[in-house]
């Protein structure tokens, strides 16, 4: 029953939600609206679950003195402080907490997050230098088109030759899009097949236990 009940719910709701799209009526609209609200509530629970999982992960790390365990103190302190400031800051009389929350977000979290992402630029430059070699005809073609697209997105491109942005646009609109369309079709068909497998109970990994 532990496994059959979820499978029955998925089968019934999966078919019902697919059918309601093709049968517009008051009942189907109300059902659709209600279920949409449920999804939003369930998604909120998922956040709670994620926070719980994060806390337990770090507590275990501290208890077992795993490598870098002291970093977990920083993570947990950040989590608790930001959550408290964010929640309590909404209470009248404690608005300073909200202001402090925004200061921490704007001057601590945002720059740290941006800095982490910015490091990518350094690795990309190094990786492009090492990997972008004209080893074959295909690689040469990729290299040339990459060059044109890169030049097309910066002002220097049009300063060198005013047709470079147009050629760059053509590369994006024709060869790039042809491949993207193919990928999108594949993804779409894959999603349909996976959805059907889940609805019909063929794919059961989402139940846990590797489908056994």
């Amino acid at each position: 029953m532990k496994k059959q009940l979820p499978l029955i719910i998925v089968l019934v709701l999966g078919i019902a939600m697919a059918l309601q799209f093709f049968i517009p009526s008051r009942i189907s609209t109300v059902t659709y609206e209600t279920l949409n609200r449920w999804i939003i509530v369930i998604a909120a629970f998922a956040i709670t679950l994620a926070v719980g999982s994060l806390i337990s992960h770090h507590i275990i790390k501290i208890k077992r003195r795993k490598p870098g365990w002291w970093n977990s103190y920083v993570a947990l302190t950040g989590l608790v402080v930001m959550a408290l400031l964010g929640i309590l800051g909404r209470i009248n009389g404690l608005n300073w907490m909200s202001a402090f929350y925004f200061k921490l977000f704007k001057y601590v979290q945002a720059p740290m997050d941006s800095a982490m992402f910015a490091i990518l630029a350094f690795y990309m430059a190094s990786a492009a230098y090492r990997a972008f070699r004209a080893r074959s005809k295909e690689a040469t073609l990729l290299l040339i088109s990459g060059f044109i697209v890169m030049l097309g997105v910066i002002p220097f491109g049009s300063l060198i030759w005013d047709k470079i942005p147009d050629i760059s646009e053509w590369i994006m609109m024709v060869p790039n899009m042809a491949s993207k369309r193919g990928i999108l079709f594949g993804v779409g068909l894959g999603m349909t097949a996976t959805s059907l497998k889940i609805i019909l109970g063929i794919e059961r990994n989402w139940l846990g236990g590797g489908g056994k």
Partner: protein
Amino acid sequence: MKYLEKLTKIDRRVIFLLVALAVIIPLVVPLGLPVKPSKYSQKLYDVVDNIPPNNQPVLISADYSPSMMPELHPMLKAIVRHCFAKKIRVMVMTLDPTGAALAEDALNEISKEYLVEYGKDYVFLGFKSGTSAVMMSIGQNIRQAYPVDAYGKPLDELPMMTGIRNYADIPLVIDIAGSAIINQWVNYAGTRYHATVGAGCTAVSTADYYPFLQAGQLVGLLNGMKGASEYEHLNEKNGYSKASKQASKGMDAVSIVHLMIMLFIVLGNIGYFFARQKSSKK
């Protein structure tokens, strides 16, 4: 010849140092490179520009985190400035938990530059979890997803929300995102509820959205920092904003880094070519 072969072995620390200089110098000494708006930035700008003032609001979803801030935050600011200058009403929401503080920060900053009033000219809806479910709920009734705004005030108490029910009452939805969430806006808001959708994304993900542009499922697209700088340029050109152009400054650094990467690739290939020639002679 030996020196040419060495071109394949430039120390990565040298590359890192040169990239750092290529970023820092243009930020300290701006180059003021010319900005020529691309076709899809112009299209998005024109769609916003043609929305009647003091009427139905534009819905902007700021679905990005601080890591994407340098590219996407100037987009949000430029679009909001354009709307405020033209008295186009704005609703801002986010489907990213960290996006709420960023969007609120942008609104607080820009609302001081223009004569706008909260609830009458703009509304901040805040974060809501559920992604596609939220998009679909807005298609039924925005009050299902957001019964109250980010400050706990019921939407019905906000004057500009009178008569705003779903996508049919929203002339344009703009998603600014650094993830594949734009696909979902196109699928659910655009295809299912026939909303007009435009987007702004990070430069690295732009290629993914060209099929939607060609099909008309996206009315316009801002391509990373370049798109943001183009929008800033259009705002300034039309007299809608006198604010400092954040993305345009960043674009100088991006341009120099692009050139530097291209130079490294050329050097690497010259070295590779000579090394290969030498080994084939042996």
